[in-house]
């Protein structure tokens, strides 16, 4: 035993590492940095980011007209979501989502109309096509984290090649499930990436009221693995950090907690009114850090982005969204059968009786 001074047991921990970054907000690649994505890959990531933004705008507008349900826009977090999703191989890796990560689901192979159906409240909206390595959207915050660890651990136990990335936010990181999941992941060294999108807000509660920790990533060593902080509005940095974590997980080096520091430019969801709790100048400051602008500026310097390409992208994306809306709206309205279907592998006797009684008495109103 050493030390008569107990202060030795309370070591100064040093300042937290600043977020990892490749691109300045003006689109300049930091000196000495080499982009991990070539221009074609960057353009393809940008297209997905722009699709996400365009869908948010369309969804908000349709919601105001009463033609789309309550949903949570990605707005402001596109680099965080797309950069991380691009680091996965959808043919073997899994995403275990929260709910604010639309472009990641699309990258993984979920058809856009499926997402539209879900937020339009159609029971069939939860369907995930065979072969798409994605769990259903999770409304219960952090409840998916133990599933992600179990799934990753199960792949590892069966020697199946695959890494699991799970999304959640700064608010969800206060839940007990976060702690329990990280704790188990550290013990079994599961190939799982905890991708924490710190967007500053849990509805109206600011990040400072979620945790006294200086960064959310610095909790990771307490669970026996690494935590890193990345500029979540920098596509290239998010990709690089996530790719590193994915490669490490694949090599058997266990989990990583990534805190992606980003900002929710929009509302919590379409029923929220952030003007009650966010000062407008704060939002305006963050608009300078818009992740889409940053990639466009970067590509413009490289001669790969101008008004013509922007307009080509916009019209292609607009068409994709139109088509998805048409496909979603052409799905027949739910029936009483949908109330019972898939509760169990087979309906119970009681359900069969209830279905019979229900079908004759309940009239399904028209879905708008």
């Amino acid at each position, binding site marked *: 035993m050493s030390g008569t001074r107990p202060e030795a047991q309370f070591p100064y921990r040093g300042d937290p590492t600043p977020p990892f970054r490749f691109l300045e907000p003006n689109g300049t690649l930091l000196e000495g940095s080499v982009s991990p994505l070539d221009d074609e890959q960057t353009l393809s990531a940008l297209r997905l980011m722009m699709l996400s933004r365009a869908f948010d705008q369309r969804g908000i507008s349709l919601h105001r007209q009463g033609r789309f349900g309550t949903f949570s826009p990605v707005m402001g977090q596109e680099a965080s979501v797309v950069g991380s999703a691009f680091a996965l191989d959808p043919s073997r890796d899994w995403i275990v989502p929260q709910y604010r990560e639309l472009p990641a689901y699309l990258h993984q192979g979920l058809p856009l109309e499926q997402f539209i159906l879900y937020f339009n409240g159609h029971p069939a909206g939860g369907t995930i096509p065979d072969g798409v390595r994605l769990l259903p959207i999770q409304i219960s915050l952090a409840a998916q984290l*133990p599933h992600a660890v179990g799934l990753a651990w199960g792949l590892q136990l069966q020697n199946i090649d695959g890494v699991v990335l799970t999304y959640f936010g700064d608010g969800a990181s206060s839940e007990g*499930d976060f702690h329990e999941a990280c704790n188990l992941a550290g013990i079994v060294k599961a190939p799982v990436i905890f991708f924490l999108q710190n967007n500053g807000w849990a509805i109206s509660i600011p990040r400072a009221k979620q945790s006294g920790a200086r960064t959310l990533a610095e909790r990771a060593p307490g669970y026996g693995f690494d935590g890193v902080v990345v500029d979540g509005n920098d596509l290239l940095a998010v990709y690089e950090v996530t790719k590193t974590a994915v490669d490490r997980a694949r090599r058997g080096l266990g989990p990583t907690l990534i805190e992606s520091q980003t900002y929710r430019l929009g509302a919590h969801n379409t029923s929220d009114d952030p003007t009650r709790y966010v000062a407008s100048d704060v939002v305006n400051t963050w608009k300078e850090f818009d992740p889409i602008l940053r990639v466009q500026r970067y590509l413009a310097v490289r001669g790969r982005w101008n008004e013509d390409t922007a307009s080509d992208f916009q019209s292609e994306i607009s068409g994709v969204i139109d088509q998805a809306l048409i496909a979603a709206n052409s799905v027949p309205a739910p029936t009483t059968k949908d109330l019972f279907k898939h509760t169990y592998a087979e309906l119970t006797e009681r359900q069969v009786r209830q279905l019979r009684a229900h079908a004759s008495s309940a009239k399904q109103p028209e879905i708008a």
Partner: protein
Amino acid sequence: MLEAIRDAIGTAMSADDRVMVLGQDVGKFGGIFRATDGLLAKFGEKRVVDMPLAEGVIVGSALGLALSGLRPIAEIQFLGFAQQAFHQIVQQVARMRYRSRGRFAASMVIRAPFGGGGRTPELHSDAIEALFTQAQGLKVIAPSNPHDAKGMLLRAIRDPDPVLFCEPLRGYRLARGEVSSGPYEVDIDKAKVVRDGKDVTLIAWSAAVNLALQAADVLLTEGTEATVVDVRSLLPLDVDTLVAAVKRTGRCVVIHEAPLTAGFGAEIVATLANEAFYSLEAPIERVTAPDAPYPLSAAELMFIPNVERVVAATRQTLEAQ
């Protein structure tokens, strides 16, 4: 009873490499009741896993393991502690098939002993099985004897849907009976008439079935022939067997260890009142714990139902005109 459960787990693990066990103290220690004794030595630490002390992640990670293609059996040391995993069981495990429209199934078993009479410390004995019976998508079963325990557990492990397997704490050593050595299965959605009698129907599950049988012996000395129905499966509920048994006798007593108000007996009585109403000759009686928290152990024998209370309630229903 314990031997039957251990036998079922070992049999399932030998037959199917995907079956694994996880929980607190299930490894070297063999489970606090020894339900997994010897399994670690036989199947290794990848299939018999000691977990950190956290019910939520025992259940939640078991769901993830099931999604990866394995067949987990999660042990919760006492059903009362499953309340720390309530959201995972009710909201997540039970609904996975429904939420994914059939793409993902939580094919897994959660085992937990429940009920009183074991002189356990506080919070260990709560009979909270009814809390889980509104978790549509989950199956909630509660065998009363070793034969059923083995056969129903083997059936549950193979079931495509998640099963909460409630074991009678008091029955672990008390419930004795012949158990076939080989693999066999017992339905997990059927009640069973375990004793036939023309005068009254006693309905119970888990440890309370033994009470009902003892009460039936006492009643027979008074000339009353009682039918005893072992419900076995609460969710789904085998309504037909219950209704048929009550229609035959016209009188009924429901027995359970949980407090009266909103105990699962309420569901059974309401169902019988609806479907067997015109055969009833007397109000249905319930013998349950009182509406109070489970007491410390020196008071527990006053709390849980006993043979005398079952006999008294039965006499009352027999006397009703």
